[in-house]
């Protein structure tokens, strides 16, 4: 699909944007999915983040670390969505796809993961963001601190508290 013709964008702008969608959609989707819990919400968040990227393509390209820029935009968007959403007493309804192989083992693991994912949604948004970015997205504490615009110590504390709560809830 020739995006430049469809959108009447300059070739120089359309080609990288198409590349960016292909390259970063998993990063954005995964973060939004873990932060928001629902697949539909993750799709909506992805769309909003990429539309924001399209309107601020210059900022994105000038950013020293484009992934960090995208993480920041995604996390901020998710925080906005979570602020508007009513607090979920039971941790919401996290949607995961059922695994196909090794039915019994996979089912047990899926059940555990589904439970953990539900419990993730019960965490305060600050602790959840820190945990998702560092432990699920694999970013360093420094990167997470830069994305969330807090100190590294705050990130460590948030993750420690989040894990303590999760252990307590899971036991």
């Amino acid at each position: 699909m020739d995006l430049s013709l469809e959108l009447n964008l300059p070739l120089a702008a359309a080609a990288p944007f198409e590349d960016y969608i292909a390259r970063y959609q998993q990063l954005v989707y995964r973060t939004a999915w873990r932060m928001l819990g629902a697949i539909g919400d993750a799709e909506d968040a992805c769309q909003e983040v990429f539309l924001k990227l399209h309107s601020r393509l210059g900022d994105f390209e000038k950013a020293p670390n484009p992934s960090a820029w995208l993480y920041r935009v995604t996390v901020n968007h998710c925080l906005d969505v979570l602020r508007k959403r009513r607090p979920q007493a039971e941790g919401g309804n996290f949607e995961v796809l059922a695994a196909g192989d090794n039915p019994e083992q996979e089912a047990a693991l899926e059940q555990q993961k589904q439970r953990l994912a539900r419990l993730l949604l019960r965490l305060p948004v600050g602790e959840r963001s820190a945990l998702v970015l560092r432990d699920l997205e694999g970013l360093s504490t420094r990167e997470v601190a830069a994305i969330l615009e807090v100190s590294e110590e705050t990130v460590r504390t948030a993750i420690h508290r989040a894990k303590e709560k999760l252990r307590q809830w899971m036991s």
Partner: protein
Amino acid sequence: MDELDLLLRDMANEAPPAESLAKVGPRVRGTLRRRVVTRYCLAAAAMLATVLLAWPSAEPVPLPKVPDFSIPAPDFALSPRIIPSPSQSRMRPSRPRRMPRLVNGDKLELASTDPNVVIYWSL
């Protein structure tokens, strides 16, 4: 590393649902396309409105022929101005105005607004 860390590591390696992920690109493109179409439609409508407002009307304005092109002046405009007499005037005083009068050779009675007061002026 406890059970929680293992589960988190497992979740980290989990691929996002492919079917849902595949919807992202087309949704973004569709929204951008709609925005571009809307922007073009609005620009076209604005341009059309500007042209329609600025374009001179093609219909001829029916003007009267030269002999008929005169405005009849009303009669009163040409007639001499009629100045109403004081009796007709709305400025007419409600009572006769007192006038100064000569009492004798060297005394003048001045006009007074109060009928009970008489003022004399000695010449």
